[in-house]
């Protein structure tokens, strides 16, 4: 039941596919729709190339080759995940546009003036693709790395005993075998690309998400915005299916159950240098450079930025993220216990459905939440006015309730997965053994479940907390009037070209965003120790 409620926004948006097309819609089709489609596709293509090159090469190098710094890169390469795309976008703009330090430096050295030289325009579709690729490649890195490590002993050693060097082994054995995992990582990166609003909006690239915004606010047409959203959803579903299929194939590709500490290719000095350059390049441009710039800005503007308004932002963000993560955790616990205890297919289906939101762009969810909430408010309002002669105004829409509901729709999957994984470790026999020793249900929960779940529950809280903190488009649409969060403020200041002023909010988001990355890298190190033990 609860799970179904959370699916309402998605189903509602999809239902607009069958709605008769309004005037605005045909206007959209005539004018901008083609741009949206082409730009979105180009952007996806660019991001795909970028994340594949960066993700697969770094994954191969860190998992299969031995070179100085490898063990540091292994986890450090995940750091770019901490930076939301819109934040890296405006930091790079600050660095590389005409007034930025890089071009200024070039002009000082050469004495050129405006128009005397060519410099790549960062605020373009290529620039947007580059920005997204720089922070999204860790998805491909993570999954293909796991695939490379998983296939290690059985097939790669065979290839090497047959006389194949690193290159041949890579292209003929490792890459084809890891393909499902790589495709899965790619689909995740592309889903994020489609969901992105901040970057493309800031760079002035018209895609689906910016189109939905414009139709909603500019043209004030909910139906058309919903129809655009529905179209976008179809593409997302295609990606979800692609990801699911790839994952299933990836399972079958494990030809051996045995895992052994693999012997890595020992690279010579020149190769090591190249490997080092590639990995540190990805790390430098994806994390160190933007984070460093943010830090610099933050330090130089400390006095003006650290005021009571900033404290207000933090309070708002913490409150929203805290409330959403606690609620998501409670819901996740409720659902996964329901699944464990009942296990019937309606429960399973409902849990699946509730878990789908993560793939769906925040913009789409916002529209899907806004429409029913507004309809409910209007209906209630007119009913009250007719019956009692007073107006309730807008009860839900434009309040924190609507916003938190949207967060739940989008991020429940995160806590659900974590809680389910934790609960999965408590095997049914552990309950049964406790009962056979005379332990009642309440005592089992207290003495077995709570201590065993504690870690997963903390992780679930943390992950949703950080995701909510970073989330931009849904917050932008659904927040109460003048209610600012860190993400919204950073975005607004950056849009007003007050890049340095935005740095405090942005830096806070990045710093908090590093927390889950640390968690992730710890699990990686731990699983490696378990394997070599």
């Amino acid at each position, binding site marked *: 039941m609860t799970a179904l409620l959370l699916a309402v926004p998605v189903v509602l948006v999809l239902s607009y596919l069958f709605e008769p097309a309004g005037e605005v819609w045909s206007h959209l089709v005539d004018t901008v729709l083609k741009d949206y489609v082409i730009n979105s596709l180009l952007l996806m293509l660019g991001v795909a190339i970028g994340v594949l090159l960066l993700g697969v090469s770094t994954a191969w190098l860190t998992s299969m080759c031995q070179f100085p710094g490898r063990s540091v890169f292994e986890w450090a390469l995940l750091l770019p995940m901490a930076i939301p795309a819109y934040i890296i976008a405006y930091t790079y703009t600050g660095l590389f546009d005409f007034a930025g330090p890089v071009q200024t430096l070039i002009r000082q050295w050469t004495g050129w003036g405006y128009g005397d030289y060519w410099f790549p325009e960062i605020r373009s579709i290529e620039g947007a693709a580059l920005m997204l690729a720089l922070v999204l490649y860790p998805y491909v890195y993570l999954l293909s790395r796991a695939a490379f490590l998983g296939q290690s002993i059985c097939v790669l050693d065979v290839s090497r005993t047959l006389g194949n060097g690193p290159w041949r082994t890579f292209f003929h054995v490792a890459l084809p075998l890891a393909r499902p995992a790589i495709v899965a990582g790619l689909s995740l990166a592309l889903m994020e690309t489609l969901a992105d609003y901040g970057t493309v909006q800031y760079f002035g690239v018209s895609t689906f998400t910016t189109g939905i915004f414009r139709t909603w606010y500019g043209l004030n047409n909910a139906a058309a915005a919903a129809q655009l959203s529905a179209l976008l959803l179809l593409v997302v579903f295609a990606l979800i299916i692609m990801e699911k299929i790839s994952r299933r194939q990836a399972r079958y590709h494990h030809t051996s159950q045995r895992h052994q500490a693999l012997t890595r290719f020992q690279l010579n000095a020149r190769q090591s240098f190249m490997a080092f350059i590639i990995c540190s390049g990805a790390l430098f441009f994806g994390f160190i450079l933007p984070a460093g710039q943010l830090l610099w800005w933050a330090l130089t503007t400390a006095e003006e930025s650290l005021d009571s308004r900033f404290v207000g932002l933090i309070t708002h963000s913490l409150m929203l993220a805290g409330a959403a993560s606690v609620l998501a955790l409670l819901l996740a616990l409720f659902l996964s216990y329901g699944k464990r205890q009942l296990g019937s297919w309606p429960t399973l289906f409902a849990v699946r459905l509730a878990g789908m939101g993560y793939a769906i762009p925040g913009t789409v969810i916002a529209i899907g939440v806004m429409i029913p909430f507004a309809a409910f408010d209007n209906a209630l309002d007119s009913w009250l006015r007719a019956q009692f002669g007073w107006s309730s105004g807008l009860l839900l829409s434009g309040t924190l309730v609507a916003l938190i509901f949207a967060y739940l729709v989008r991020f429940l999957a995160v806590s659900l997965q974590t809680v389910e994984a934790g609960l999965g470790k408590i095997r049914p026999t552990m309950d049964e*053994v406790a009962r056979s020793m005379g332990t009642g249900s309440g005592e089992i929960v207290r003495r077995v479940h709570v201590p065993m779940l504690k870690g997963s529950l903390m992780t679930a809280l943390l992950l949703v907390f950080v995701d909510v903190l970073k989330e931009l488009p849904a917050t932008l649409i659904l927040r109460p009037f003048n209610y600012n969060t860190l993400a919204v403020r950073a975005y607004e200041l950056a849009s007003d070209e007050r890049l340095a002023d935005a740095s405090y909010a942005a830096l806070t988001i990045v710093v908090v965003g590093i927390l889950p990355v640390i968690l992730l890298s710890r699990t990686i190190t731990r699983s490696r120790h378990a394997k070599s033990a």
Partner: protein
Amino acid sequence: MQNQLEVRDVSVKYGRQTVVDRVSFELESAVIGCLLGPSGCGKTSLLRAIAGFEPLALGEILLHGENVSRPGQTLAPEKRRVGMVFQDFALYPHLSVGANVAFGLRGMSGRQQRQRVAELLGLVGLSGLEEKYPHQLSGGQQQRIALIRAMAPRPEILLLDEPFSGLDVELREQLAGEVRTILKREGVTAILVTHDQLEAFALADQIGVLGSGRLRQWDSGFNIYHEPADRFVADFIGQGTMIPGRVLADGRIESSLGILSADFNQQHQAGDSVELLLRPDDLVHDDESDFKLEITDKVFQGAEYLYTLSLDDGTELLCLVQSHHDHGIGERIGIRLAVDHVVAFPS
């Protein structure tokens, strides 16, 4: 002596499917019983019914004279004082070994608990491991901890669900012997569920063979091997071949191996067609014997060879021979019958 466990006419159903079909047996105090059968025979369901995890469709279960299960009424597992050891051991990863063993101890002071834990750890030769955590132990050690955790509260009966199947083959045999010694020393009444007959022979006093939900035979291991009650038991336990025969007027049986006389485990009429069960140890290799059979296959088993011998009509027999009698395939060797128990089923 009072029966510790009585299973009377018990049926267990999942939906409309009957997985345990009117099974009855009894177990005296301090006796180790075993439910043996192929996978899907209902042995685990029966064990779970005794533990109280499965309700009964028919019949009743008495534990120490007290009725704990009947249709529509199942005393909860936590109220019936059973101890259970699972296939996956189900040790709690968040608790130390000592805390795991003490999990079911209640109404005891901390000192008494520590004492009991130390005593049990000593019993299985793992003294001093109280502070370790389950993941730091080997498979065999985990198994022993799971065993003493179930024994700690001194249950009325100890239930072991395939307790050795998660372990290496070598370890399995060694542990089965050890577990029997421990249970006997403590005077524990226990039921083991397994599909491995050697495990059953090594551990149990009484074995029940289950097939398709029905209890085929409840007997000692020796009798189950040498005097199987029906063809299912004969097929499932040990190796052997069936050869056709005919009952003569004087009660002896005529077969292609000659005329056999011995006690029958079943009544047959003169002139009946029957099938005889021949175990590999019923055939003895004897160079003096005039009765010669051709070797069609042989497997070296260390101390013995297992020869496959062929009769003229193509029937194949198995024969165990000490391995210093090394004959080649195709050779004909002398055979003598040494059948103490003639087992014949109507064909």
